[in-house]
């Protein structure tokens, strides 16, 4: 077994372990941290595949930004664990049977034929080959069409997010500085001429 293979199995085992703990951990914060571990070891596997740009992005974007935000959300929300676990054991045997059937089917389909020495081979590159530079070149030349489309998908996401969440509430107490500055005396002060010297009401005079 070469060193590469050894590292791969180590990282793969770590990923599977972390992924299992994500769904079995009782505390959502722990689950999120295990997800970070799963991302991290996946980044290692990508490194083995000579995809260093993807590895770096996974750590920077997912571990650094997305999961931190996620942790914030988990900590802010008051999640009722008892409610979440309700019915878990009731449905557990059902889920196990379903999962077992699926695993059996997959093993049956894939194991019945020789599938180990699989598909297309990828060429190895020299040590000075820059995966990042190559991706950068491809994304703006050969893949410019899907790149632009991805940008449009993001634009749709922005439009949709604003359309779904922007609500002009009548009772909100937000300030409009321009209106406050432009206010005139007549808008705020009303002079009421109160008649004086007349009887205020029936009674007390006499």
């Amino acid at each position, binding site marked *: 077994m070469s060193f590469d293979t050894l590292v791969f199995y180590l990282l793969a085992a770590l990923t599977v372990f972390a992924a299992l703990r994500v769904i079995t951990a009782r505390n959502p914060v722990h689950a999120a941290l295990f997800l970070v571990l799963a991302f991290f070891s996946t980044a290692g596997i990508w490194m083995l595949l000579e995809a260093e740009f993807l590895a770096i992005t996974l750590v920077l974007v997912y571990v650094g930004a997305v999961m931190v935000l996620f942790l914030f959300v988990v900590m802010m929300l008051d999640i009722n664990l008892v409610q979440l676990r309700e019915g878990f054991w009731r449905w557990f045997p059902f889920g196990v049977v379903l999962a077992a059937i699926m695993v059996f089917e997959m093993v049956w*389909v*894939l194991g*019945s*034929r020789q*599938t180990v020495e*699989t*598909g*297309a*081979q*990828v060429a190895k590159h020299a040590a000075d080959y820059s995966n990042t530079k190559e991706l950068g070149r491809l994304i703006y030349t*050969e*893949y*410019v*069409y*899907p790149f632009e*489309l*991805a940008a*449009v*998908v993001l*634009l*749709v*996401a922005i*439009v*949709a997010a*604003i*359309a*779904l969440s922007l*609500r002009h509430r009548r009772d909100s107490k937000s300030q409009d500085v321009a209106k406050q500055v432009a206010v005139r005396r007549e808008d705020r002060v009303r002079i009421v001429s109160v008649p004086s010297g007349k009887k205020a009401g029936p009674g007390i005079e006499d």
Partner: protein
Amino acid sequence: MSFLSTLFPAYAEIFLLVMVSAILIVDLFLTNPNKTVTYALVQLTLLGCSMITVSTHQHGVVYLFHNMFVDDLMSDVLKMLSYLSVSMMLVYSRNYLMVRGLFTGEFMALTLFALLGMMVMISASHFLTLYLGLELLSLSLYAMVALQRDSAIATEAAMKYFILGALASGLLLYGMSMFYGATGTLEVAAVSDAITHGVPNKALLVFGLVFVVSGLAFKLGAVPFHMWVPDVYHGAPTAMTMLIGTAPKLAAFAFVMRILVEGLQPLMVHWSGMLVILAVLSIAVGNITAIAQTNLKRMLAYSTISHMGFLLLGVLSGGIDGYGAAMFYAAVYVLMSLGGFGMIMLLSREGFEADTLNDYKGLNQRSPWLAFVMLLLMFSMAGVPPMVGFYAKFSVLSAVVNAGHIPLAVIAVLFSLIGAFYYLRIVKLMYFDAPESHVPISIQPDSGLLISMNGLAVLALGIMPGTFMSVCAVAVQQSLLLH
């Protein structure tokens, strides 16, 4: 200039994208609550797109963007039909949405983005662009279903649509990644070549195929992946239901053609068996469950499921006959459901949805012309002879018989007969029952004219289906280079 002229076949997509971005900005400065200017701009954009598509049409198959974009007769015909369908949907839904306060700039921008997604799917020749087009379409539709925020049922529908749609996208991507693993390419034509020549890992390919077909079935709404269809059709505002139920089916047809027929033709023995199961189950479950519905939108949803079964029957029979018939069926289905949902919106008014079967009781006494148009549409959906629905079913069935699947054709006919019951029940309600409400029906002149034309088109195309049928056959033949 030379760079711009190389983009010639994609001018329609580029024009649409530029116009949506412009409309998004222009709409911010318009204060008219009726959005007349935005609406006019959107319709002009659709007109412009159709003119560009016609004028940039080239004979044969043209590839662009490193074989990621393909322009052929099939894509041009499907795009023209999509423009028409979206334009009709806007005319039908304008008044309906206006009284509900949903006729906003965002609604129109999202509609156009969804159209752009459909166009990308129709013209895709690369798994990456197919997927991105699908996501662009789906994401716009999820948001549109949720636009009616005060309605709990619409929000629930959007949530279901979003989660199941994301699951289907995941399945699809997983399958695509298997193809990439097996063949080393994502180009549709190259995948087909690699499978024919290279004999790569067959098991991996078939494994991927299962996921891709499941993902496609989810998106089409074929049984057993249909659970979202009735809830989404019922929960979404009718205008959004109409958008989901019409033009995207054309794009879905193109999607099936590009992936299964162009890319995985060598695996046809494997996928046609899967499609048989999907098609038979869809036709059976769709038609039988529709009988039990009391809500017209839910009924039309189950009817969609059975129509998708018919479409798959056409695809699995193969050959120019089968693919041409499937394309014709998709277009006819779109025309009929535009009319069906259009009628619901015409009869609805502020605070009232004409979506239960009881609302159609005695429609003949309230408005004989609308009842007649609805009769034409229902007859066509049921497949009664002079209507185009009959011819669409007939051409699919003859392709199925020619391909030698006679038991399939018999099953399809039997379940269509069962299905005829619930379409004809509406005709019975309209003509032989007493109306429950006597509120006068007020119709906008534009949508009234359109529904008349829609109903008459169903009749006229049924009497003279030859031209359009041959357009479909030629389109399929030229695009797939079949002989």
